């Protein structure tokens, strides 16, 4: 199962756990499964079906906000600040 790192400000929903696991072949599936286990998580991280503005999702170190991005068994998912430039 993919490991998902939960931002500190949302860890209240996962009982304080920073790293959780969830099954799923795509990012969408993983998030949906996570939300089933920790209700409300998806709403904190996503809005109108897209990742919340100001955040980016990285899968195995690569920024990708595509919900149908495939996720492997040993993938690592993070929610990081959306850094953009000047």
């Amino acid at each position, binding site marked *: 199962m993919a490991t998902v*790192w939960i*931002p*500190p*400000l*949302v860890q209240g929903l996962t009982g304080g756990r*920073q790293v959780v696991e969830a099954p799923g072949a795509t990012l969408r599936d993983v998030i949906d499964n996570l939300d089933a286990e920790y209700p409300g998580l998806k*709403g*904190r*991280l996503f*809005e109108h079906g897209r990742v*919340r*503005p*100001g*955040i980016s999702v*990285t899968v*195995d*170190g*690569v*920024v*990708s906000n595509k919900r149908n991005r495939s996720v492997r068994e040993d993938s*690592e998912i*993070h*929610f*990081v*600040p*959306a*850094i*953009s*430039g*000047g």
Partner: protein
Amino acid sequence: MTLTRDKKGVAGKAPYKVIGTRPLRPDGADKVTGKAVYGADVHLPAMLYGAMLRSPHAHARISSIDTSEAERVPGVKAVVTAADLPVIQDILTDLGEGVVNLRYTSNNVLAHDKVLYHGHAVAAVAATSTAIAEEAVKLIKVEYDLLPPVLDVLEAMKDDAPIILEDLRTTELGEKREGQTNIASHIQHRRGDLEQGFAAADIIVEREFRTGTVHQGYIEPHSAVGLYNDDGHVTVWCSTQGAFGIRNQVSELLKLPVSDVTVIPTEIGGGFGGKLGVYLEPVVALLSKKAGHRPVKMTMNRTEVLQATGPTSASYIRVKMGATRDGKLTAAEAYLAYDAGAFPGSPVGSAAVVILAPYKLDHLLIDGYDVIVNKPRSAAYRAPGGTNAAYASEAVIDELAKIIGMDPLEFRLKNAVTEGDRRADGPVYARIGFVETLHAAQEHPHYRAPLEGKHRGRGVASGFWNNWGGRSSVSASINPDGSVNLLEGSPDIGGTRASIAMQLAETMEIAYEDVHPRVVDTDSVGYNDATGGSRTTFGTGWAAYEVGLKLIDEMKRQAADLLEVDLESIAYENGIFSSNGDSLGFKEIAERIDESGHPVVASASVHPEEFGPGFGTHIVDVEVDPETGKVEILRYTAVQDVGKAIHPSYVEGQLHGGVAQGVGWALNEEYVYDDEGHLLNASFLDYRIPTALDLPMIDTVLVEVANPGHPFGVRGVGETPIVPPAGAVANAIYDAIGVRMTTLPMSPGTILEALWAQEES
């Protein structure tokens, strides 16, 4: 689209023929002869000229606006206020400078119910001359109810601070807190156990830092011409880093379909992140609509640029780090409060990543706050948030190393992140070149050169920038003489026409001079994210690579037809298409395109994800005059991992420019306000950016640790260079006079005060 790194092509096949050379830029003749057309150089038939009325107050409610007298001035054709803007709900759009709420943008473009900073635009006039427009502006009567302003970031966070935006609530990752506030958001990163981490430290250093408001300082003021045509189509000519971003904002703010808006980017005289958001563009379109559909031009003067376009955040930063006696970092804690100007959106998010990014840490806590104040809305400025953050963290790193008695570069090496290490906010680093920059700095003659003389010191600092991929689209066609027209949508701020053309030439194995790049408008090419974020040579270059492969495929087809052989048998190398002994040159085929069938054209678009971050390590020698407090930069060396330098001269240029801005930020630049919130130094005389006398030649070392995520190994380079300078200069000042500076700028007055305070104690 699929990434095609493993397709046929010359990617990765060094030695390169074009990449790494230093040809002349394609727009060179235009730029050195004054022919290049920048924003303010645009002239159209029947054009009118606009002027803006701006708030004289830092914070006030607008109780009435009377434009009647202004409208009656002969020559005045239109007057607009926020009443002419459609009402916008909260729309969030990503400009590449971070997500922006367009309702706030609308308010910033023309004040809604309150003026929120000195210089906030309130109304605009279009007339037959700028002089008439400026006279008419003075006749607009605005009644203000003054409100107390708040300008300091910590003051604005207090419970009793004047409230700037009544409907603002603090959000924490989607959750809104109750109550009026100036704190727009709070972010946090955490790892391990902070208490445990600090308990394991032998030495702990904690320092507080303050940085002032600084402006991007581009020499070209904002300028735009808007034509709201009789058929409802809006065309905007403007100096911008990203025409598509401007198109999106104009269409959203004026509630027009995107297809009804065309943005034509002119040449741009500097941006650094400050020319991503709209200021004049919606206003000139509105004026044009009201002025009988005549084009309207507005150009800001320098005062307006400084008063009312985005500077970057002033900040309060507290950093605490612990290390063992043998130089291993055990824990770090950072608190960052960044002011966003009058509307939310400071770069505290990026800052929170930059501040600890270069170092391995098991235990850390970072809290960041985005806070609004009565200053112009902040805009991105080259590695937004990074310089302030690194100023703080690099000072603490330096202090730890000094206390332990370890060489500062050794200390950094001992704790440096490499591939596989985890960044402060979580993700694991892929191949990076930080350690390589530290080694290169250690081995550089500058680091070993003796530095003699009183009040002279040497400092080092490192810095990180994330970089960006973004979306790029290009189109290309082959001319009968074998040259290639390349249409791109990336405004050329620093030599990217050259670096992109070089990548196309290398891909197609043709001469650089045979590629003719053009920067075109939003109707003429597919979507392009802005030129900025250190993405253009990387991203648009990649699109050029992709289009080059497609063109070669097409040419192979033409060759197969002309040679009357199967397509599969065609090989291409060094400009020659061959099959079983028969061959045709690239130009031969190009000449015969007419007879062989159809023109050869192709387009490509990319959205690459593996952009890879940049790291830099800087060394600086300074001399401090103990009587005046003036700091002279004696010698400067900037080392940076650049992935692959496509055109080394322009890569060096990016390092030079970032260093110069960083030095200005370190030693002189800041906005000065009075107690009522008026900006006192809105001119280049008193907002003092570095001149040729303030800097020596700047040595650069381009370390090339190829980015595995790009066909030619390119890494973004433009922003990393501005991250280390302030920290390096501060550390050099400490080495010179034994005073640890904790505020920016470290101007003569503040240095003297710090010196005297130290003498007293």
